[in-house]
């Protein structure tokens, strides 16, 4: 089968960008979307032209490197998957596919489909951890954790930090990302001592990085490749309220 591509090309964060058209690209249904881009790039390289720049590494939906807006949807059609898990069998012969980078003020374009998501790292650096010096830990079974809490913490912990939630949000908010980390650690006994300070520090950093505020659109949940739900945002908001009222930590 053949598809036509419209791919966003942009030299750098301040350079103007534009779509480049590739028509009649030969594909097979078993190919992944990124393998299709590899093919396009091999052709470009053979012609001495610069390939389309995009991030990818694991190509199995876990590292969070890949991501682009495909036909208006973060990570493309299909629920709960990353761009690298999208296969060409999701398209029809003759389709024209539009591919753009994440668009958010806090994620400046580096080149083409590659964006700078280091703001996510800075949010974690601000408080997204449990302080536990190496070697100081008690026996792992010293604190039993009920399966329901462990499972709920786990569901939040599956976040891959890809940024699709930000790309999908009309406000480019990072609340789902932040709430997933605060949910993961805040649901576990180990995370209790820093629960409220962590929530505050991460949200403060998020605001400082230029992400928008959350106004409950819920687009993030729909775009999340790991299916992380907005209920974690509600939980984070409760923690923030408690922190602000001083009810926590005492």
């Amino acid at each position, binding site marked *: 089968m053949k598809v036509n591509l419209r791919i966003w090309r942009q030299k*750098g964060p301040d350079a103007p960008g534009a779509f480049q058209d590739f028509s009649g690209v030969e594909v097979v249904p*078993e*190919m992944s979307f990124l*393998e299709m881009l*590899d*093919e396009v*790039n*091999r052709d470009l*390289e*053979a012609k*001495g032209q*610069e*390939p389309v*720049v995009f991030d*990818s*590494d*694991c*190509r*199995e939906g*876990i*590292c*969070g*490197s890949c991501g682009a807006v495909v036909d208006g949807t973060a990570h493309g059609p299909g629920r709960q*998957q990353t761009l690298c*898990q999208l*296969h060409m069998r999701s398209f029809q012969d003759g389709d024209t596919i539009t591919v753009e980078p994440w668009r958010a003020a806090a994620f400046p374009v*580096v080149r083409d489909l*590659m964006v*700078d*998501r*280091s703001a*996510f*790292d800075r949010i*974690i*650096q601000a*408080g*997204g*951890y*449990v*302080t*536990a*010096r*190496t*070697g100081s*830990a*008690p026996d*792992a*079974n010293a*604190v*039993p*954790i*009920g*399966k329901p809490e*462990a499972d709920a913490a786990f569901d939040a*912990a599956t976040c*891959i*930090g890809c940024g699709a939630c930000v790309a999908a949000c009309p406000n480019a908010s990072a609340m789902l990302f932040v709430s997933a980390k605060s949910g*993961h650690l805040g649901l*576990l006994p*180990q995370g209790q001592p820093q629960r409220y300070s962590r929530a505050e520090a991460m949200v403060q950093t998020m605001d400082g990085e230029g992400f928008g505020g959350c106004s409950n659109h819920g687009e993030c949940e729909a775009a999340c490749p790991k299916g992380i739900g907005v209920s974690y945002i509600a939980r984070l908001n409760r923690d923030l309220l408690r922190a602000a009222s001083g009810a926590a930590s005492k």
Partner: protein
Amino acid sequence: MKLDSRAPDGPIETAWDRHRQAIRLVNPANKRKYHVIVVGTGLAGASAAATLAQLGYNVSSFCFQDSPRRAHSIAAQGGINAAKNYQNDGDSVFRLFYDTVKGGDFRAREQNVYRLAQVSVNIIDQCVAQGVPFARDYGGLLANRSFGGALVSRTFYARGQTGQQLLLGAYQALSEQVGAGKVKLHSRTELLDVVLVDGKAKGIITRDLVTGEVKRWAADAVVLATGGYGNVFYLSTNAKGCNVTATWRAYKKGAGFANPCFTQIHPTCIPVMGEHQSKLTLMSESLRNDGRVWVPKQPGDMRRPRDIPEAERDYYLERIYPTFGNLVPRDVASRAAKRMVDEGHSVVAGGAGVYLDFRDAIKRLGHDVVSDRYGNLFDMYERITGDSPYETPMRIYPASHYTMGGLWVDYNLMTSVSGLYAIGEANFSDHGANRLGASALMQGLADGYFVLPYTIGDFLAGEKAGFNDTAHAAFDEAERNVKGQVDRLLGIKGKTSADVFHRRLGKIVWDGCGMARTKESLGKALTEIPALREEFWSDVSVPGTGADLNQSLERAGRVADFLEFAEVLCRDALTREESCGGHFREEHQHPDGEARRDDVNFQHGAVWGYEGEGNAPTRHTEPLDFRYVHPSTRSYK
């Protein structure tokens, strides 16, 4: 090359304690005066950088991804071993040690392996304290599963995402130190050379992958945690970016490269389906806990699996290895699959594959239990193949997965270059000729959290702190070489993408030095590789410039190193005239097809030393001594 293992003598149970007593320490007040470079942010690198910073050292951390959290370790699925004996099934430090030495086919250093088993229990404690959400039972205690090569249940897991959860734990610990200013983080930065000053590693040269800037970094010691070289086969389960560049450049600066031919082919991967394929996807070994491997008894039987009656199926692992059954170690399972396919029993039309069937598990445990254990793996499989493993057996085949070989290190994890350390998959230390499942995560974290942060003190204590002379001639020379290679690649202006060369190299290495090797196949590879390398250097196309972001250049640089490294890999396989672990020489097998080891001539680590451009490398050896686990023929029957 001097290869002093520095492994302590005397009773193995107390070796690590005695060693820690004996080595030099850096005074806590002085630690902040030392600067350590840690390259790599996988389990090994992130845990080491975080722990070194906690101890007070200043650390610079590098990775080529946009965030340390994306290191290849993130993709590990199945689990991590530890001798906790929480299941009360007879596990112990000694048993984990024994299983690992035997599983490695008696090609690892006993003292290192024993230490690994000892600290394994601390790893689990540490990770739980960080908030790693391991699987638990309804009583709230930690759950375990079994992995190949063991008769006890000692594997801790976090659904099918153990690597992700462990790495996030280490990444968060690292991030805390970045926030505190103790670690300087350099993402999207690639190491292109190691700098030696007076024979000691005192810095590195990097290229900023966004701006193209080539930069010098000085430090008091350098740690490489840059992962394995499994992508030499092009198709592998490794992330696309995994490469040999860092360890290869270190080798060219004098670090010995040990046992490159010990590569692991993982038995359960989704088979190759076409030319377009860019990587292979692993289906975790944990699936063999409940899945049964089989092929049709009749060669060429292409009926749908459900239409093949029980009597016409060959559950060959259960048949040949009744004791371990579907849980034989990886090398054994992989070769058995290859044998079945070679004899015509493949279940992939025109290709290679065998079945991994969950029908009986679903019958026995119910859909929900199976889905709870393997749901995300089943989804992953269905996404790629379009088939549901709940309804039809998975099709699987072995693929390149892990590399036991790596930079030679002593008991302190120092390479043969003073001040240069290698940890995690980048070193050769603990797995001998074959790694057991769930042991790489254990080793990476053991090295990073519990070994290197202490042993590095022994070296630093003897160094004047604060080396920062990036104007030294050694930096000039290293930078010149790096820039020279970049210019050379850009100047070729050929017609072929580096990716195409990589794929061709992968095929040569897979055919010549894959699951089964012969003198002839290796000889052929050894003539084809230099020819391909020559073609690469005259026809590779690297558009763009070196002065900004250039992914073609990144790929070409890595392929160039693989093209050199592949030759040493094949040479090592050719000289090791025995079969052991992942290294199977067809000339050396028992009549029943099992590997024949040669302990008289090859009970050693083979360590390759660089002798300069155009010269053959020299082969050195580190003899191995087994006092606790007596070398025997590995039998899983």
